[in-house]
């Protein structure tokens, strides 16, 4: 039986008179990875933020493993623990060092004992290759390192799914690789992932489906090979052309 982990049904959201999401539906099965692409301002980030309700949608429903996220308040923090999020600008807690950034969710949300939490946080930092930076504050880390701590912070909570909101867009080109490597490793371990990214090489190699969004709607979606070879819409083709110009084909990348 295929388990539908995340179900998004007919999501609508507007900010004032601006309609950002105009009816988005989407399903992620356990272990699936889907990449959302599209021009800026089409609601990709808003869509992700509706999934863990950092933004409250106007209508439509979101379910995580059958439990509705879009209604009720009491369960929200419980549900959010199961949905990791990685931000474009990392959003590491500025006043905490790398270890404490990863640890605080364990002690303060999961109520884990301090000793155990530190052990686990260290193990996760190890996983992203930053064990030796445990004592460094965010300002002392490079962008790539900060983002890897951001990913570690999400992983440590043992989420069912992780949302990535343009995780490499704020990084210098030479730092992107280390972050993509951690993400690839995570993908290979079977994590369910919903990503907004323009790293096409990465998308090609790990994702099950590419979703092209424009103007608050899903214009086209399909497996990467089909998507890149024969996009159905002219608009998709033009967009793909543009980003491959900018970001390259990515075939040589991991």
């Amino acid at each position, binding site marked *: 039986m295929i388990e539908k982990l995340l179900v998004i049904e007919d999501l609508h959201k507007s900010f004032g008179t601006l309609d950002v999401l105009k009816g988005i539906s989407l399903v992620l099965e356990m272990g699936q990875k889907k990449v959302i692409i599209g021009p800026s301002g089409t609601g990709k980030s808003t869509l992700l933020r509706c999934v*863990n309700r*950092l933004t409250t949608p106007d209508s439509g429903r979101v379910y995580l493993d059958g439990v509705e996220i879009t209604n009720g308040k009491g369960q929200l*923090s*419980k*549900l*959010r*623990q*199961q*949905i*990791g*999020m990685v*931000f474009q*600008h990392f*959003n*590491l*807690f*500025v*006043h905490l060092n790398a270890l404490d950034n990863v640890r*605080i*969710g364990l002690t*303060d*949300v999961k109520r884990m004992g301090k000793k155990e939490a530190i052990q686990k946080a260290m193990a996760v930092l190890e996983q992203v290759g930053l064990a030796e930076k445990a004592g*460094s*504050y*965010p*300002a*002392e880390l490079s962008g790539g390192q900060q983002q890897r701590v951001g990913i570690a*912070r*999400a992983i440590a*909570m043992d989420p069912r799914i992780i949302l990535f909101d343009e995780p490499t867009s704020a990084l210098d080109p030479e730092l992107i690789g280390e972050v993509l490597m951690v993400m690839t490793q995570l993908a290979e371990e079977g994590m369910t992932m919903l990503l907004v990214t323009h790293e096409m090489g990465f998308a090609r190699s790990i994702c099950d489906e590419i979703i092209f969004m424009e103007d608050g709607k899903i214009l086209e979606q399909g497996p990467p090979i089909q998507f890149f070879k024969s996009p159905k819409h002219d608009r998709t083709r033009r967009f793909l052309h543009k980003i491959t110009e900018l970001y390259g084909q990515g075939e040589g990348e991991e």
Partner: protein
Amino acid sequence: MDILVKEFPSLLQGALLVIKIAAGHLALGFVLGLILASMEVYGGKIISLLGRTIQKVIRGIPALVLLMLMYFSLSRLTDVSTTFVAIVALGIRSAAYQSQVFRGGIKAIESGQMEAALSIGMRKLRAIRRIILPQALRLVIGPWSNIYTMEVKDVSLAYSIGVLEILRRARFIIRYTHGNALLLYTVIALFYFILTRLGNTLLYRLEAKLWIPGFERREKIRWSRRKE
């Protein structure tokens, strides 16, 4: 000068009372100020409006009038000391002022910090306590030293409701010795000056101690020249 030696115990008691009231009302203002600021920023419509209104009303009333109001209302209702009334009245006023200092600090923290905290399943109140305030408070030590400096000196207003602080004691001495006014007022001025300097020094030490990488810091001035 003999009078100073003779009256030293009395003046010292007055001085200690000033310190007690200052510590009490600043602490009360600190706690209530944090609550007011959090209400204003994170409260949602109704709670935010409530916080805003409280803060506006209190800041619009002179401290002296607030003291009188509290004195006549509290002491009529219950049997409380004037010292207690002074701490409450000045504390409430301090809360209103401190709330705006804290609000400035909270607003200086990027919204991404709260979002990241929520995204790992932290509840809002805990996120305020564990993520927002530790950063915001570090930022506002400078402006808070203004609050300290002004409000420590305002303890002398407690004189008006009969608190036996240093000023009132000095007035007694002046009255029964028919003189020494200049001397005693100078002593009081000196006392407040030392108290404010001392507090400020400690606050700036605290600021330096709590510094985190990534924050700006005050240039350290070394007066002694070092040979390199």
